């Protein structure tokens, strides 16, 4: 009798756990987008990716879904700082990167980041290929005035970042056909932001891959 009761209890517990897992993983209103656990969305370095569907269509037209991955940087801090300019202030210990998938296989990554512009925060979205070279850069939010947005946020300027990797020269100020000091300063900030994403991710992922290879 006691055994049968225990069995019923175990079955009920299993059903409850299964139901809880099912509810947690239930598809959202946008079924193509796969979220991920183990991320604190209120963390200081977390910047929302505001238009994932639209950006995915622009950056990776054939991609079907994405999932959030957290790459911890703490261990690689000295190497990252060595590869960046002395003025770079590394204030985050992790990169929140969206792994873009096509039929379950990764085709690249998208990383949104907030950088300090002259007139307020600028949120950039950087798309990287699987080999961690820049595919595209876009601006998802800024407070900058037109004298800056006209020059810097246009596709013909941002397209100069395409193909750059962690060893490239990110200084694009020579590409600007303006002498506006605010535009030049913002271009530098923008380049530093894009470079920091590429360097941080490359250093961390290469080290992780190297370590896994040794195992």
């Amino acid at each position, binding site marked *: 009798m006691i055994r049968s009761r225990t069995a019923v209890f175990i079955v*009920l517990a299993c059903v409850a756990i299964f139901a809880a897992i099912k509810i947690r993983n239930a598809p959202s209103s946008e079924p193509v987008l796969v979220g991920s656990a183990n991320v604190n969305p209120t963390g200081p370095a977390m910047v929302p990716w505001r238009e994932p569907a639209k950006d995915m269509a622009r950056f990776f037209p054939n991609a079907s879904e994405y999932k959030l991955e957290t790459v911890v940087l703490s261990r690689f801090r000295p190497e990252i700082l060595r590869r960046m300019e002395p003025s770079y202030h590394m204030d985050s210990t992790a990169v929140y990167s969206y792994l873009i998938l096509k039929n379950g296989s990764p085709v690249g990554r998208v990383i949104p980041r907030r950088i300090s512009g002259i*007139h307020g*925060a600028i949120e950039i979205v950087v798309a990287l290929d699987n080999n961690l070279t820049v595919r595209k850069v876009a601006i998802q*939010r800024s407070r*900058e*005035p037109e004298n800056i947005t006209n020059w810097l946020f246009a596709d013909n300027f941002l397209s100069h970042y395409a193909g750059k990797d962690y060893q490239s020269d990110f200084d694009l100020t020579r590409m600007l056909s303006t002498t506006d000091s605010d535009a030049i300063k913002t271009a530098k900030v923008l380049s530093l932001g894009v470079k920091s994403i590429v360097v941080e991710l490359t250093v961390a992922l290469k080290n992780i891959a190297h370590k896994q290879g040794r195992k």
Partner: protein
Amino acid sequence: MIKIILKNLWRRPIRTGLTLVGLSLSAALMTCLLSFGQAYESAIRTDLDRMGMQMMLVPLGCPYDGAARALKGRTLDSSLPESALIIAQKDPAVSLAAPVYTAAIPRKGEKRTDMWVGLDDATIKMHSWWKFTPGSHGFDGPNSVILGSEAAATELRKPGDRLYSPETNRDFMVAGVLERSGTSDDSLFFIPLKTAQQMFGEPGRLTAISIRLKDPSPPEIAATAARLQKIPGAQVTTLTEMLGVFLNLIASAKTLVMAITVVALVVSLFSVFNTIMANVIERTRELAVMRAIGMSKLGLFNAMLMESVVVSVSGALCGILLAATGGGWMERAVHPYLPLAPSEGLQSVTLNAALSATTMIMLAGICAGLYPAWVASRLHPSAALRLDI
């Protein structure tokens, strides 16, 4: 006795467990509601006292809505003429009249709204809870801005930085950044009053005026309110009235939720009744033997009643534990929807509330156990032993 009761209850762990779960949920809900009610009232009183004002002048319309929006730094559909401020300042009973102009700029792409609040020195004096971060200072020109802590973090600004408003084409210099206060101030952009009025094309208009009296006694408040009520285009809302309205709103909501809790309690009661009654029926022979070997009717009655009390008190205790652990989460979930939500967190479990909930559930448990205990006490040993159970 307790050992026997526990042993009896443990014979049917699933049934007892489910009864305990039902009771715990009712107890947790009851404890949280009672605690929230008490903590909300005290926190809201503290918040309003801290503002150091006794009344607000708001544009014609719903005075409570107007005052609540002004207090939360939200916009109003209408505005006050600046002449209302001059009249209020001249009133002999008024110690300080602080004008505010609030406007919103929705940023649809970002799913947020920039709230710009225009204030003058008198209004800043009333914000006694403001604490500046190092390097900050007050307004030092028409184009200076003070940022709430969240606004500064979102815009990555610090004192001395520039801040541009693309929608109104205005460039500001960040004069100060406030430390986190837990109030709606954290997400606001504060600018000089005149700048705000110009920026949004409403020179000479105000959203609200906060009034501090020289003598905040009730008769003085009433007399001043009656005088200020005569200002054209304005209406007066005293904070006592507002507090009353907020507490009434909360009381209505509390009554509704209390009704749900009572239903949950009644369901749990039936569950206790069912558990104890089933115990009596299942153990008829055992109880008959106990009667046959000399246990009195009263003894049997007490034993069954105690079983009911043990289940209900255990349920209540589990419920309080649940409220203590999950109450914070519930408070965070409810906090944004409270009118004039207090700046500080609401204590999830108070001793009073826990004692009240335990007492109510214990009384309910006693009620639920009376009939089964009475049935048990009336068992006749010979008749009971003849039953084929």
